[in-house]
């Protein structure tokens, strides 16, 4: 039998089997095990309703446990053995934290975790809001979505071409360097490379400080919440403070740095900045994802709330930030979470473009290196555990959110 036929077969069997399972097990529960009639009708209905969620959940949970939870436990187990199979306790972890490359990847990952989800979600929200209102919106959406259809390796190729650098006396084939060489330090350079970035980043700086303050304000004003909420607020404020600090350094740099006009730059080999060039690739890809999900959510915002606000004289910006954004907050959390997790797992981009050299190492690539280059399952597993630990704040945030929704 041809595999394609087999695939058809599997679709039919898989889909049919699933439907049959759900249908038959429900019938069995309602008609045979706990029939809602006879002397115990009431008790039976209650019992059936206690069991039913598990019927719905069973296939998914079984697959999840087998394909994901089991490897996690296996990993945790492996992470306390060294490469010769001897038990070392937390030795792998302490060895890892002593490695400068690991500390570097941890630092970089924190930067990635803040910048990429924020930028991709913000651009996605912007794109969703803009394209919702115009006739050619669907076309625009398709174009912004296009990078999603390109594999990470393909995307790395595209951006390698963009960041390419060659000798000053050859013609540049990298777009960024070609544009860069157009600047000569004159008025145009001052406008485009100093004034405009300074204003833009200055605005971002103020916005982040404001956001940090509005997260922190309820605490300062003494409005208590649960411990989780307080923790989340503190974390948010800390992130805002950190970003504010980074941006302040940027602002200072933009205002004062001497720029090497006229010489092509090897962008991927400029420590610290090269991280942002790599992040740009992922933001470019993930914005399409954020846009699709957020635009569905935006369209779900009830028209009457918007009309009411319009009648009250709210301007479009107020409608967007005060009416729409709060209503789709749940979806924003989902998009943010998903992109955060993608960030934690992405290694292809870094592997293909710099392989973590020039201070661009990230945890996922570090892990890949330990697993398949060094064949050191202990260290590799330990770094995987760290990756999974990093997701804890996101986990807490989601539990808070889920509780809120269920009330």
């Amino acid at each position, binding site marked *: 039998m041809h595999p394609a036929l087999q695939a058809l077969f599997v679709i039919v069997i*898989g889909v049919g089997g699933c439907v049959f399972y759900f249908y038959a097990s429900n019938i069995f529960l309602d008609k045979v095990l706990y029939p809602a009639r006879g002397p115990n009708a009431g008790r039976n209905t209650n019992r059936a309703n206690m069991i039913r969620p598990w019927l719905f959940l069973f296939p998914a949970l079984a697959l999840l446990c087998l394909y994901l939870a089991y490897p996690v436990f296996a990993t945790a187990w492996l992470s306390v053995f060294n490469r010769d199979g001897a038990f070392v306790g937390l030795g792998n972890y302490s060895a890892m934290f002593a490695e400068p490359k690991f500390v570097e990847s941890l630092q970089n990952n924190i930067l990635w975790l803040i910048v990429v989800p924020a930028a991709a979600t913000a651009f996605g929200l912007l794109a969703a809001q803009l394209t919702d209102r115009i006739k050619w919106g669907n076309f625009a959406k398709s174009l912004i979505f296009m990078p999603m259809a390109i594999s990470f390796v393909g995307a790395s190729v595209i951006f390698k071409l963009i960041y390419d650098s060659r000798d000053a006396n050859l013609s540049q084939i990298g777009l960024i360097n070609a544009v860069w060489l157009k600047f000569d330090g004159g008025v145009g350079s001052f406008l485009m490379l100093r004034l405009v970035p300074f204003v833009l980043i200055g605005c971002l700086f103020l916005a982040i400080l404001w956001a940090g303050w509005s997260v922190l304000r309820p605490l300062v004003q003494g409005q208590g919440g649960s411990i989780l909420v307080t923790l989340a607020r503190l974390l948010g404020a800390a992130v805002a403070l950190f970003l504010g600090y980074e941006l302040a350094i940027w602002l200072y740099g933009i205002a004062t740095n001497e720029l090497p006009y006229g010489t092509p730059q090897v962008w991927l080999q400029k420590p610290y900045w090269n991280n942002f060039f790599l992040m740009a690739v992922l933001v470019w890809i993930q914005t399409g994802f954020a846009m699709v999900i957020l635009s569905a959510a935006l369209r779900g915002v009830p028209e009457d709330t918007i009309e009411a606000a319009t009648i009250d004289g709210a301007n479009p910006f107020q409608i967007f930030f005060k009416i729409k954004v709060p209503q789709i907050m749940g979806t924003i959390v989902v998009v943010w979470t*998903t992109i955060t997790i993608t960030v934690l797992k992405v290694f292809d981009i870094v592997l293909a473009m710099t392989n973590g050299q020039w201070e661009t190492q990230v945890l996922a690539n570090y892990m890949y290196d330990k697993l398949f280059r060094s064949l050191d399952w202990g260290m590799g597993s330990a770094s995987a555990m760290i990756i999974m630990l990093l997701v804890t704040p996101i986990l807490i945030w989601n539990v808070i959110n889920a509780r809120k929704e269920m009330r």
Partner: protein
Amino acid sequence: MDGIAGKKSGLVWAVHLSTIALVLLWVVPTFGLLVSSFRTGDQIVGSGWWQSLSTQVQQLAAVRIEGDEVERDGVFVIEGQLYAAGTDVSAWGTSSREPEAYEPGAVADLGDGVTLTVGADGGFVLSSPSTMADLRMPRVFATASTPPEFTTGNYSNVIASPLAGQSIGQAFLNTMTVAIPATIIPILVAAFAAYALAWMDFPGRALLVAFVVGLLVVPLQLALIPLLQFHNWIGIGKGYLGIWMAHTGFGLPLAIYLLRNYMVGLPRDIIENAKVDGATDFQIFTKIILPLSFPALASFAIFQFLWTWNDLLVALVFLGTGNDQQVLTGNIVNLMGSRGGDWEILSASAFVSIAVPLAVFFSMQRFLVRGLLAGSVK
């Protein structure tokens, strides 16, 4: 009224302009690759893709003179054309050290009475008093302006390459075989679970949500060896069944997470009314939730399809690399040869593999909108 209308149209313009700016920013990288995919490898590394439409003045690669010798009045002559039509030579030379030594039409003395002339159109005349059969032919270096040139050769290389006996059509089919079941099955399984997590009351629900979110982050690389071991142990080994199961398992957390989030947002009164009317959970799910969740199902279907389509790692590990199993990504990677690729193959193959996911997105977009309209009617 006028003032408000004026402000409105100003805003509309702003929306259009910022959308255009955003779209341009997002399209330029891909567009660059698209243009590059129609250029030859030497052109791609020779000049930026944005210059490909303009006539360029550049130093051409050295060409060694060849041709048949003709004897004319005791002088041996080789005549011919060095470059493609449209090339306009502005200077030329016969040594790599002085590539611009002569004007077009000037006569270069190569010693022993041998002379060479290259015209502006690239025509050359090499003449010698004695036969040149044993002469080492000179090379010509020229600075010339060349008209833009495009080729579809990269695509025919990628599509028709007979390397390793596997055609790209076969690889396409294999990828389809992997991707379609691996898209449909997780959606179905996840939809039921998502409904239970969103609308059914049972102890430990929030914990289960956290469990699913926690599993989202499990790095795939860790799961490969234990799972392949498991597949070997239950006897399915490497094959389509294994990869379908693997993709289903890996795709489930996100499917459950996205669908649950969407279902939680569905209007509560519809579901409660149905319950009052005596509908069972199973009926509510199939008759109300599923149709209303269509946009969410469609968008997850798109993402899952894209991932399985672009995946290489899972396919290599769970499916193998034989001709009737190799997927498109694997086929393209193999095309690049043992030592990594050239721009032209990379760019053409990127567009060959992007075609199907884009078609899927365009066709699914209709459903995204339709489902949403259905959802907004309450």
